[in-house]
């Protein structure tokens, strides 16, 4: 078990042995702490995946501050504008006028004409009952050659219905316009990080004659619109699923939800499901499974009994990963997770049965602010938060699984673990960079 050094505050309330962890929320909802790990993407980063789109945020200055500097750190200020809501707007109720005239003013002043505008409204619009359909209708009348879509920065809704992250990933594809379906075209949707091209997922589909598109492949707005022709949308990220469901309803594109997994049997099952639905022959993947077995053995040989910690930002399936590593003899000593996703229920039960004392730490619980962030022995962390809370320079610097999917993806993750074990990183510097992989400085 992870041993913490020193400290006067005990960890009660911030950690629970997994056997006592409730599903889906193992910790009480109280005041929240936000640690310095910033590698996960926010709605600004995600929105910029739509090529030739301009983002306009309408909210109070305090809410604008984080997003405007996100854009600045991406050096993307020229694709980003703001409308500041002040007290008089709340008191006078002129929110619609401010939104319509503000967007108009900005678009008239831009030195270029964007193909699309992602207009982000906020909690204030929601609470004041702003007539957003009216606003969008007026803007579409005024700018008929620009596509507008509704995006949201309303974190007050994060505990009711779809979260802002889910809404954003759904909004990424809301601009797609109906066109003829091409049965040989498949999209992968819902990811901030592009899927690794070496994945057997992509290779299998390409070998079967499919064209695969992810939003990251679209270098202009016309290419992005081509995504509307895909017959299927594959999604493996739980927060992207709502977007796939919306596309199924709106454009008739079938959703193939194939959750990420680190369990070989589950990965195989996923591919069997996919090939069956697509009417493909299931290829022989024994070489892939053998490669994974070899990669696990090699990594175990290198890493040995070194304590391993995992956090929820590194992968959408931290429990699946922990289970796979523990099954293969790795010494997983702590998890950093605030809540469990539905996909992980089976893995949670397995871990509770086989490793009941495995500690699960909250990342937002207030004591995490002051509990010592160091360990008494060399520790390998998978994810930025795990690295931060254990104070280790040996960490795998990925978010959202790094785009590594399937057997090949797990092999690549194991290679990253070996590399992280052997080479120190500048944790302090690296984890404070926003939106890992999006080009932030």
């Amino acid at each position, binding site marked *: 078990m992870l041993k913490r050094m020193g400290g006067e*505050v005990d960890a009660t*309330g911030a950690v629970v042995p997994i056997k006592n962890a409730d599903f889906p929320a193992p910790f009480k*909802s*109280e*005041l*929240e*702490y*936000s640690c*310095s790990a*910033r590698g996960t993407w926010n709605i600004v980063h995600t929105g910029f995946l739509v090529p030739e789109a301009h983002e306009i945020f309408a*909210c*109070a*200055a*305090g*809410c*604008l*501050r*984080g997003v*405007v*500097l996100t854009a*600045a*750190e991406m050096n993307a*200020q*020229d694709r*980003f*504008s*703001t*409308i*500041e*809501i*002040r*007290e008089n707007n*709340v008191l006078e109720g002129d929110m619609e006028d*401010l939104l319509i*005239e*503000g967007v108009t*003013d*900005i678009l008239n002043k*831009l030195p270029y004409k964007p193909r699309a505008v992602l207009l982000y409204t*906020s*909690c*204030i619009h929601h*609470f*004041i009952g702003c007539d957003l359909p009216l606003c969008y209708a007026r803007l579409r009348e005024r700018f008929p050659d620009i596509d507008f879509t509704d995006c949201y*920065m*309303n*974190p*007050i*809704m*994060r*505990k*009711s219905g779809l979260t802002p992250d889910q809404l954003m990933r759904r909004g990424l594809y809301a601009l797609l316009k109906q066109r003829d379906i091409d049965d040989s075209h498949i999209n992968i949707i819902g990811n901030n990080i592009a899927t690794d091209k070496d994945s057997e997922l992509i290779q299998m589909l390409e070998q079967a004659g499919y064209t695969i598109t992810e939003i990251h492949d679209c270098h202009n707005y016309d290419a992005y619109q081509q995504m509307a022709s895909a017959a299927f949308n594959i999604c493996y990220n739980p927060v992207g699923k709502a977007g796939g469901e919306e596309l199924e309803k709106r454009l008739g594109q079938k959703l193939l939800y194939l959750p990420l997994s680190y369990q070989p049997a589950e990965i195989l099952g996923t591919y069997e499901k996919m090939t069956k639905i697509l009417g493909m022959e299931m290829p022989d993947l024994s070489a892939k499974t053998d490669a994974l077995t070899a990669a696990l053995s090699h990594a175990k040989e290198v890493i040995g009994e070194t304590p391993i910690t995992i956090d929820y930002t590194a992968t959408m399936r931290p429990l699946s990963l922990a289970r796979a590593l523990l099954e293969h003899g790795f010494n997983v000593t702590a998890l950093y997770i605030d809540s469990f996703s539905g996909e992980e229920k089976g893995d949670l039960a397995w871990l509770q049965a086989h490793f009941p004392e495995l500690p699960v730490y909250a990342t937002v619980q*207030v*004591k995490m*602010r*002051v509990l010592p962030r160091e360990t008494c022995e060399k520790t390998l962390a998978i994810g930025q938060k795990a690295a931060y809370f254990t104070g280790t320079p040996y960490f795998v610097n990925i978010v959202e699984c790094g785009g590594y999917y399937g057997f090949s993806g797990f092999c690549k993750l194991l290679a990253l673990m070996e590399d992280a074990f052997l080479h120190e990183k500048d944790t*302090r510097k690296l984890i*404070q960079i*926003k939106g890992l992989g999006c080009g932030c*400085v």
Partner: protein
Amino acid sequence: MRQTARIISTYTADVSGVNSALFELGGMTVMHDASGCNSTYNTHDEPRWYDHDSLVFLSGISEMEAIMGDDEKLISDIVSAAEQLKPRFIAVAGTPIPMMIGTDFKAVASVVEKRTGIPAFGFATNGMHTYVEGASMALAGIADRFVTEKMPRTADISVNLLGVTPLDFSVNRSAAHLRTVLEKYGISTVSNWAMGDDLDTLMQASAAHVNLVVSGAGMGAAKVLRERFGIPYVIGRPYGDWTETLVNSIRLAPKTGDNLSPQTDRANTSAVIIGEAVSAVSLANALKVETGIAFRAISATEARKIMFGTSDCIARDEDELLPLLEGAKYIIADPLYQPICPKSARFIRLPHEGFSGRIFRDEIPDMTEDISYITRQLV
């Protein structure tokens, strides 16, 4: 159109100003917000976050709690955290939705104080003002609550430095340098509000002869200390040779009892500085003293008339700023202003943590003693 920004950034908000001002004082600050304010604060507004475990948290207010006006959840969560962490004081600061639902922060603080026995403050910030307002409110709260005892004045002339946060002074040793520069003129510092000194030191503030308001964030505390102890204040930030003029005012103020805001004659301005009011005006005065060039200071944050010389003004929006920049020979401002500046002007980068956050932090100069970083660019 006012309130729109095609391209420029926005200043740190009032709620982060509260956090920043109280960061080193051993309290616990709670932002009553759904989410977002916490990561914005600790990423862009707080350079000390990684290395100092100050207690700044978020309430995580939900839609249902807002609709139902459920203050009890906020109060009980604060009480629970305070029992676990035992801060010296508790501060609760607001954001837009609490403002819309009319959260009574003073009442919340009062209940928290009764339940915990820990001094508590409620600050009705709403995320619609800049950090200057929030930090000023917070430091005034500290002065009002903790500086209650009239201490004997120090034998030699001394000051409290009011309004020192990384949002204006970054973390490049400017804050500490204020003290050493004043020492060279024989002026000691009783307390620094609030970088480098703890709450116990701030509680000695009534021993000072003068309050030196080095940023707008110090105004609230200056007024409290003036009212309670009769301590006059001088407004100005030490910059290069200008410090001598400030020091003369510091020596004069206790004799006359007047609050002072020394200015140079800066009529017929041909150049512009954009920034926080006290810093921008003080730098304009310093440049006038050292180069003879008259700069107009434009405050993009809240300011009071007393801070300004005759040519200075407030302008917050792009459309307000643009006409003021026309024809300027020099423009000194944060690099994120450059896209709206006329190309005919020579643009001199002066990064400001309160505007561009951490992006240009390594470039932020310490000009407390020497402003040649700017003067050598005025060719």
